[in-house]
């Protein structure tokens, strides 16, 4: 989270993208110059199933305001079934976050194929504005992590 000089809230968004579909989709968004806010920072993982729910909790703990996980469309996973595992794991995590009282709009799973550059940027625009609406993540932040 960051508040700039105009008092505008600039969220920190972590996006986990699978190497085969969504990361390529993000590249396509770039090469077709489909812009989305600079608040989004992408971490490349081989498959959405590599994303441990712990990573998402860690991001929130370290001050992220939103986390989005992007994978191949169901049935298109490079590793056949990885995104199904990701989907189930995230469903469990979302249930837990909900229980903890974290707004469910702060986390999201999206399927973006390598051909969906426009969808990638639209998704990111939408997600960032949704997170902006919510304001900074204060509940899960571990204040000890901040100097």
């Amino acid at each position, binding site marked *: 989270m960051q508040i700039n000089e105009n008092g505008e809230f600039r969220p920190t968004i972590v996006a986990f993208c699978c190497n085969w579909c969504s*990361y390529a989709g993000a590249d396509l968004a*770039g090469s077709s110059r489909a*812009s989305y806010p*600079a608040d989004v920072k*992408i971490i490349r993982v081989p*498959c959405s199933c590599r994303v441990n729910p712990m*990573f998402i909790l860690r*991001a929130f703990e370290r001050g992220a305001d939103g986390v989005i996980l992007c994978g191949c469309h169901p049935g298109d996973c*490079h590793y*056949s079934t990885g995104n199904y595992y990701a989907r189930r794991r995230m469903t469990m995590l979302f249930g837990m976050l909900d229980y903890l009282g974290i707004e469910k709009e702060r986390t999201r799973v999206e399927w973006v194929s390598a051909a969906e550059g426009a969808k990638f940027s639209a998704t990111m625009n939408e997600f960032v504005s949704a997170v902006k609406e919510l304001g900074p993540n204060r509940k899960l932040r571990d204040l000890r992590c901040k100097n």
Partner: protein
Amino acid sequence: MEVNELQKIGVFVCWCGSNIAGTVDVAKVAETLKNEPGVVFSTDYQYMCSEAGQLIIKNAIKDNGLTGIVVCSCSPRMHEATFRKTAEAAGLNPYMVEIANVREQCSWIHKDMEEGTEKAIILGRSAVAKLNLNTPLIAGENPVTKRALVIGGGIAGIQTALDIADAGFEVDIVEKKQTIGGKMAQLDKTFPTLDCAACILTPKMVDASANDKITLYTYSEVDNVSGFVGNFTVDIRKKARYINTDVCTGCGACTEKCPSRKTPNEFNMGLDTRSAIFIPFAQAIPNIPSIDKNACLHFKTGKCGICQKTCGVNAIDFEQEDEIVTREYGAIVAATGFNPIKVDKFDEFQYSQSPDVVTSLELERIMNAAGPTKGKLVRPSDHKHPTDMVFIQCVGSRGESCREKGYCSKICCMYTAKHAMLIRDKYPDVNVHVFYIDVRTPGKNFDEFYRRAVEEYGVDYIKGMVGKVSTRSNGRLLVQGSDLLANEQLLLETDMVVLATAIEPDESVKDLATMLTASIDTNNFLTEAHAKLRPVESPTAGVFLSGVCQGPKDIPETVAQAGAAASKVIGLLCKDKLIANPCVAKSEELLCSGCSVCANVCPYGAITYEEKEVNDHGVRETRRLAQVNSAVCQGCGACTVACPSGAMDLQGFSTRQIMAEVDAICK
């Protein structure tokens, strides 16, 4: 735990002309990243990927004794491989390279210089944080057994085997029936050229059997598959034929003398009967009979044995048993083919009630010169010449209910046009009506073929579906269907009804998929590695797909796919060693509890368990531990998250590395 030495990291920020430098202050990025932990060198240059740019990197590595490099440039999908080679040339481990994507994911999508620069710094910082935890990875090597296995001896399997053998590799075909040839051997003519199926198939069957690189295992099934790409071990069950194949001459005297002649002939779709000792058809390969134990009087009563007395070379061996052959292969091709679905659930079409309602494959046998009627078109019920015929399309295809398949079977439109045309050509007195929902004829010369059936041969195409078929008292059939274009309900009296039956993958594919750890979809078709870009490979390395086992297709497509699968196999077998992707899962022995969760989620069957002695802080004991086969693991990481004890980690994308990236971004 492995301890990382202190890294000495070099950061190289690329301008990419103005592509990056236009919206990112590259000098500032380089300057700022210099302060990151581990960074000892940082610079920027116009084109890092150019010869000169690569030289800068190489020199910096040598001059500063760098242990790893971060390149802030375009997408790693573009130049990661380039920079890995550069690093390797300068003596670094290629996996000590990280790319910060500051072009596609930064400069190209942001317009504000300040914003872009800030994000580029964060991306660079994240790459440095990850690189600090990188360890040199060494790609493993595995030898390749230079022999291929083709499962299924239809046109797909035969063509694949011929192409592999052509390239000089040994190849075995396993066919569960008594002869190779598959469904194509049962066909009469083939669309769209109407050449006879036997005339183009049987020479290929002969080629396959005569080729000294090809070994045929007919009447055999795959019992077990173990191993991985390049090193499969397969158990093949040679079912007992009760014939000594080494001495049998295929004279066929036994089949003529056999007194048990009441078994429905599978090859003729049950339209006639065969003897208990039989050769499926005249051109069968191998041309050797086998005994059907369930029909044979000797096996049922212990009395007969006429064949044994008839045989001049004493080839009959009632004592024969199944034999298991174990062989090693480098690659496996699945070519298990298809079957028409059972239509007995479609009561509205009277298939089970009237012999004059036949499936298209049955009609193929009726029309075939070598078939039960010697190619004469007759009504099965009374062997009279028909004057009216009705074809019903999409029987069991494109439906939603449990008796139907959700997909289009693809070949039916064309073979129905073929049947209609052949009948009108041979018997102009027969009226042919085709009820269709859509006529789908994409393919070279396909639509022209269908139009010819309508325009030249006068086949009556009716847009609509048949609702009901009933038997009249005069023995003919009454077809009630709709003509949607005329908005009428039609009642047609006809002699025969032909159902264009949907096709489904052969039953055996389910067990096979489990053995091969190849995945099948909800319709039991084998899944390809990528729907567009890798259509003949299974997601499991070393397993390839050929023919209808992957999805409905006609003969030209099957042959094309068979050739494509063969070329993939050849590409694999001509390598002496396989270099594995080193970014694979690895289990930490002291943390592993042997719970099997990782093995259950692994889509490749790469994880096995081993009883192993460990030294856990001075305590020596034997534990059940997960072992990842790095040659089979594709590095998806599903196991790493599933592992409840945190023992499983993915090299190159380790938990610590990803956490470090998260931390760097959220700092």
